[in-house]
């Protein structure tokens, strides 16, 4: 492939820089959050996260290099692999009452649900592109709904309600984008709700209990209310300028559970105050707006849908997570992309951003 001058002109440095900045802040915050942990294993989490960042950045480069139309040709394959790995989770994951979300591959464990997020976006974009002429036909929509439901149901079973809802939201927003009428979408939704009681009767008592806890986190004995109260104290006490690096007494002294994963934003807000939080929010806002613009400017339907899906996925997670930490949205276990501790999430988000950049720089190529 000859290197076109326009490829470089349209190269989206700012987006990559934004992502790297956020990831860097994440590693720093994980370091602060876990520096006082009682387990030595936990104290090294930031190093692991840094390693994952390097892996993710490498994949980002790969995702930028290969023409996204080529990547699109393998969309169904990726989707199939993601579904396959989701199916493996109950076989190889940890057996117990807790959730099973990881698969072990030798020395490392990965979370197939993270892969499924990106795979679903790719697959739906490809699916609609293949049916360009009858994109809003009810049959097309039923197919798209099925493609979304399969991974969502597999993820619910783990159980991971947050991710499952996210998959549904991404699927539905892509359907809305291609122009599905509400009068097609509503009956499908109602039909699905009607199925729920039937599924319910098949569940065993303890499975029901699990689901109830996920639907209503207040049933969780550790109490979501406690999480939010502590998280608000941590964020609020940061005040305008923050308490400074490593001086986050709230989030460091174990008052805040899950401080390095779902509540990482609180660690950051306590240390860097309103100005720091604003900066993080601005970075995410830029990422969302740029992503949506790329979707609008894309040359073809596939690129446009892919860019839209990726942006929705990252943006929705970011806004939901921050909303949860600030106590304006319910507690569902959704990580903050690029900042929360988690290798699979980091790697897949960076890869997705690579795809986004790819769409942007090839917008004049066809």
């Amino acid at each position, binding site marked *: 492939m000859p290197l076109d001058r326009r490829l470089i002109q349209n190269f989206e440095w700012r987006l990559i820089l934004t992502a790297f900045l956020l990831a860097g802040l994440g590693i720093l915050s994980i370091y602060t959050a876990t520096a006082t942990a009682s387990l030595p294993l936990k104290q090294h989490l930031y190093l692991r996260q840094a390693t994952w960042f390097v892996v993710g950045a490498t994949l980002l480069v790969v995702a930028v290099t290969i023409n996204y139309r080529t990547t699109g040709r393998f969309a169904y394959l990726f989707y199939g692999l993601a579904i396959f790995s989701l199916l493996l989770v109950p076989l190889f994951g940890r057996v117990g009452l807790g959730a099973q979300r990881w698969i072990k591959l030798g020395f490392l464990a990965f979370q197939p649900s993270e892969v499924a997020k990106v795979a679903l976006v790719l697959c739906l974009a490809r699916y609609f592109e293949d049916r360009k002429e009858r994109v809003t036909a009810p049959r097309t929509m039923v197919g798209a709904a099925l493609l979304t439901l399969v991974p969502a149901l597999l993820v619910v079973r783990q159980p991971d309600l947050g991710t499952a809802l996210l998959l549904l939201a991404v699927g539905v927003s892509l359907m809305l984008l*291609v122009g599905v009428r509400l009068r097609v979408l509503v009956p499908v939704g109602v039909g699905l709700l009607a199925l729920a009681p039937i599924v319910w009767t098949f569940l065993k008592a303890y499975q029901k209990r699990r689901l109830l806890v996920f639907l209503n986190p207040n049933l969780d004995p550790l*109490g979501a209310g406690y999480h939010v109260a502590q998280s608000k104290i941590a964020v*609020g006490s940061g*005040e305008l300028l923050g308490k400074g690096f490593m001086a986050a007494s709230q989030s460091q002294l174990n008052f805040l559970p899950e401080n390095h994963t779902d509540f990482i934003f609180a660690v950051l807000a306590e240390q860097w105050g309103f100005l720091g939080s604003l900066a993080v929010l601005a970075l995410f806002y830029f990422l969302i707006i740029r992503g*949506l613009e790329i979707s609008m400017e*894309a040359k073809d339907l596939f690129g*446009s849908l892919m860019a839209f899906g990726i942006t929705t996925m990252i943006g929705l997670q970011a*806004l939901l997570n921050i909303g949860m930490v600030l106590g304006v949205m319910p507690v569902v276990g959704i990580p903050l992309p690029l900042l929360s501790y988690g290798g699979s999430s980091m790697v897949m988000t960076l890869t997705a951003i690579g795809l986004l950049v790819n769409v942007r720089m090839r917008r004049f190529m066809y």
Partner: protein
Amino acid sequence: MTTWHTLNPAPGIQRRVGRLILVATAVVVVLVLRLWHLQVLEGNRYLAMAQHNRLRLRPVDAPRGILFDRYGQILVDNRPSFDVYVVPEDVTDPGGTAERLGQLLGMPVEQVAEKLVAGRSRRFTPLLLKAGVPEQTMIALEERKLDLPGVSLRVHPVRSYPAGSLAAHLLGYVSEVNRAQLAREEFRDFAPGEPFGQAGVERRFDAFIRGIDGGEQIEVDALGRLTRLVERMEPQSGFNLILTIDRRLQDAAERAFASKSGAVVAMDPRTGEILAWVSNPAYDPGLFTQRISREDWGILAGDPRHPLQNRPLQGQYPPGSIFKLIVAAAALESGAITPSTLLDCPATFALGNFTFDNWKREGRGVMDLHRAIAESCNTYFYQVALKTGIEPIVEMAREFGLGEGLGLGLGDEGRGLVPTPGWKQQVIGEPWYPGNTVITAIGQGMVLATPLQVVTMVSAIANGGTLYKPWVVKRVESWQGEEVEEYGPEILRRVRVSPETLRVIRDGMWAVVNDGQGTGQRARIPWIEVAGKTATSQVVRKQAGQEKRGLKDHGWFVAYAPAHSPEVAVVVIAEHAGFGSAAAAPVARAILEAAFPLVTVDVPRGQRPPAPPLRPPVAALPRPEPVIAD
């Protein structure tokens, strides 16, 4: 941003994406306003709250599920444990407190003082002073609370073992997760100090048994003292397990085997359910509920009789004459002999330069297979094995589950060993000699089997050729009695052997106990027909200087009853106890007597005796309330 209209392929997309930009912007604005509210407008208030953070979360341990026997008898339960904590910051008079505490807790005063000093670096964290103090001490501490500022008590449920070390190896024990475990991915949800089932059923079913811990949100003052209980989330007790164990058989087995070393397993041959499980010497699982002391651990781990080894599962012994049943089956199936083939049973048998003995010093004359099994004639089986050849014998042994793990799932399983010519060449580097076949025929030489394998094999003989997977948990249920999981029998395979062959072998086993010349007459019970097989497995002579106990042979006895419709199969191996008929058969007999107690009822002439009383169904028994710590 001006080129969209000509470039974008689908109509309406720009409009809709544009709308989403507006929505996203609105959400971000809301979040910014919220941040402004929290951090700038209310920041002062939150900072004040943070400075003396008043809300704390205190975990409340969930009681573990209770383990019941098959009829609802409690095997493992919970009891409250009282732990004494001290918050160093709150101790106003360290010297006096150390003295008073030392007196009350029976600890050296210096030790208490030392702990108080060591805790200075984490002044606000409650420090565990002593776990599991007796109830009287707890009352005494409560009474003197005012003299002891900073000292607090916590109650949490720990395992209690009303039946002592009963079936300890099968049930397992519970102790805190250790550091090595915490470093592993599958323990990511565990906190240091959390109890975890470390062996047996407690470990395998830990996820079911452990329950979900509750928590208390407490408000504390600036000194960390409790001022108010804000909210309490009740812990959810773990699921109860109903095991296949039959307490009556288990008790009988423990009593009859008490002074011996070795293993006993009873199984229901119709399903593979484990009815009793003894591994001697046993250990007290209660030692582990609090942190086990270094001395206790040293005694357990260093004991030359290996009390921690789970013998029925992990002990691998030469099966001795029990293996003759396999040889008989292989010989009949391959056509090497028929039930009426007559062979001599001399005192010795010469093969090349080697002489192999019978276990009796005199010859027993010409006999058929039936008598050879009953009298356990070695020389008869030497000849049969040579006629049959090693391959069919190996194949038959494998059919009956020897040489493989049976999948009980409670820890490392001994696989035993069925030696083959190929194996010998590979591992020892020597070819297979006819002498190897001869010695294998009587279950000596290189053959090894675990007691669990032997009882599973004999169960298959007893039930007509079905090899069941052994299992111990019948049902998992919530403490309200709702079913969570129900387990049933699992067939490993139908053994490829004809009913006629099995009949001949069973007749032989019947004669072992009931014939005047049988080797297992000590297991005879007047009111129930027992079939069985004795075995004595030679222990390889150890070097001089070893203790004497190591020199005697192991005695085996395997049996089932009633002989014509078997309901219970039993294996007993008494280590270094000499002949199986003397050491092990009476133990098996005691267990079978417990399984089939002799009920005497006065029956008027001409009437049928009343039906025996039914055992109460499990569900009808009252369920104990779970112990909840407060």
